[in-house]
């Protein structure tokens, strides 16, 4: 450090910034440059382009017209938009809660000694390995009114003729959610299971000697240990769920009506079905702001729960 130059083109660099211009530092930047360039090209540029687009009316072959905040005014005025917002939050909140609960339940079961535990773990992990598009097509079949397994089961068990799972507004979002939860609960299961393996056994023993029953052990030893990883994974999964496009798009395309419409699919429809690129960009910006909010909370909690300790 001391033998590097302390001036750059005649400008004296304050000591605390000298490291930035040291040889090591420059080499570091040099190595980062290719990936930074690629990232900028495929990620930063489109985002900036999208933000810019949200202030224009898309002209197609003609010139785009600058319209200021008009797109935003229109977005917030759309009755559809608020339905979609509501759907999106219901969808991301409820499915994450369901996934976390089911994942936790299976983690508790898999954390106990029993014959065939590793087989059970593998089987339960399988959904996580299936591509969303395959999940979507399979579950669409399962939900089929005439031929689907669910209605078949209902008939056999005497629950009437079955339900139009994907075909009625009341059930559509919930049905897609079922498929999504099935696909993603192993993520929670496996992270919770890993966290449980890290809990020292003597804590359970101490708590048992201290007068705890099973429920006490779960509440006062297991849960506190799962909390940090639980908070972080829940938030991460919320983010992914807000973003999720495939299942809704393939299974219902947001229908019937807008009853299962979520933001990513809505943006797609506005842009590519209705050619409202400006409007779609404005919605995307709104979504970006929401996601950034989530992301900031995530980083904050991550530092508190995991990084800081």
């Amino acid at each position, binding site marked *: 450090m001391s033998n590097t130059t302390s001036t750059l083109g005649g400008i004296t660099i304050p000591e605390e910034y000298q490291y930035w211009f040291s040889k090591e530092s420059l080499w570091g930047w040099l190595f980062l440059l290719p990936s930074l360039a690629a990232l900028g090209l495929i990620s930063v540029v489109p985002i900036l382009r999208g933000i810019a687009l949200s202030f224009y009316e898309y002209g197609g072959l003609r010139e785009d017209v600058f319209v200021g905040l008009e797109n935003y005014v229109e977005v917030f005025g759309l009755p559809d938009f608020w339905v979609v917002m509501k759907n999106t939050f219901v969808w991301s909140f409820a499915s994450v809660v369901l996934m976390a609960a089911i994942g936790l339940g299976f983690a508790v079961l898999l954390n106990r000694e029993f014959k065939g535990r590793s087989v059970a773990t593998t089987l339960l992990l399988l959904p996580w390995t299936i591509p969303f598009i395959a999940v979507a097509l399979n579950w669409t079949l399962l939900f089929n009114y005439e031929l689907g397994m669910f209605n078949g089961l209902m008939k056999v068990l005497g629950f009437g003729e079955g339900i139009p799972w994907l075909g009625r507004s009341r059930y559509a979002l919930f049905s897609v959610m079922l498929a999504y939860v099935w696909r993603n609960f192993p993520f929670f299961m496996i992270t919770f299971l890993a966290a449980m393996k890290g809990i*020292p056994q003597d804590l359970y023993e101490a*708590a048992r000697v*201290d007068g705890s029953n099973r429920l006490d052990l779960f509440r*006062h030893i297991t849960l506190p240990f799962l909390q940090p990883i639980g908070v972080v994974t829940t938030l991460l999964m919320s983010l992914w769920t807000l973003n999720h496009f495939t299942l809704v798009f393939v299974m219902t395309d947001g229908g019937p009506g807008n009853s299962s419409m979520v933001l990513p699919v809505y943006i797609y429809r506005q842009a590519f079905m209705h050619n409202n690129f400006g409007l779609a960009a404005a919605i995307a910006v709104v979504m970006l702001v929401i996601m950034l909010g989530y992301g900031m909370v995530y980083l904050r909690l991550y530092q508190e729960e995991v990084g800081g300790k």
Partner: protein
Amino acid sequence: MSRILFDSVTKVYEGDILAVDEFDLEIEDGEFLTLVGPSGSGKSTLLRMVAGLEEITDGEIHIGDTVVNRLPPRNRDIAMVFQNYALYPHLNVLENMAFGLKRSTNLSAEEINARVEEAAELMGIEELLDQKPKHLSGGQRQRVATGRAIVRNPAVFLFDEPLSNLDAKLRKHMRTELQRLQQELVTTTIYVTHDQEEAMTMSDRIAILNHGELQQVGSPREVYNQPENTFVAQFIGSPSMNMFVSELDRTGERPRFRGDVDVEISEREAETIAARSDADQFLLGIRPEHIEVHETAVEGSVPATVDIIEPLGSNDLLYFDLEDGTGVDDVVADHVEIGEDEQSDEEEYKAFILPGSIPNSYERNDERIYLTFDTDHMHVFDPETGENVNKGRMATADAQAESAAEASD
């Protein structure tokens, strides 16, 4: 009452691993009993069976008048201190100590706080009550773990190597502190350790285990002075007892041992030994403090050479080699344990000497020395069984000496 009774308690782990074999022991109310033995001896398993953390394969454990075999830990009125303390990391010291009271009693929050404060004061940790365990030092954690046990005022304390994670100095300090605490609370205590010194200094009685079998129970003095077999003889006491190989020779005018050690014994002793064993060769156990080291040959002395000398402060420990010593391993039967100290093939013989009493020998190896042995404190072990065949003789010798001393007073 909190007497504890082990009635032929057996523990077999999965895969037919016998951890504890028909263990019988009665622990008096208020007694401090230490279970000591090398790792794998079954001492922790026994403790965990008392706690209810391990199923009892066979036999019964009574706490007070209750058979506790089928009771869950929470119904046994016990408190346990774990080797790694097992403090709840997400709770502060106060909450850690209150945890058991909240679960096992109907005390109000104020009463619980009062009891925690009282126990914290006793352990000297009042200042730490709002700290989380991760901010505490090892010694402080140990105190909190002990405080968490005493605050519940249980019928029985169980300690599972509670001091083994502390440095030597702190360990000694906590040792006396735990002793003082137990004397104050007079609660029946089972204390597990692999450290014979801890066992010697703290206990009312020591139970020595090896391979799941009880070797001997007795006061620290008893097990030190009258070890029932070679295992106890070598396990208790540091440095451990010397074992010499000698033959009992009754052909001469007076019976004597010949071999590594050459000593005369009385006819009566020879008879006692012969009555209890038909072996020819014996192991003679003599503790380092019962060997006298001379620079020149004296009557009945055995020649030896200096190996090394360890200065210990108040006295020095001299390691010596015998001229033509017979290896103990050549003599003892395979199943006879001569203690965990036996790490090398070569015998290590030790004697205490006064510092500087062998001039120059700090630098020079192979210096010739001459040893005499205090036969009053000599143990004779059968190499086939490992049993002490003259146990008790020494006690009578002691008693005689004592009564003689009294008479002369």
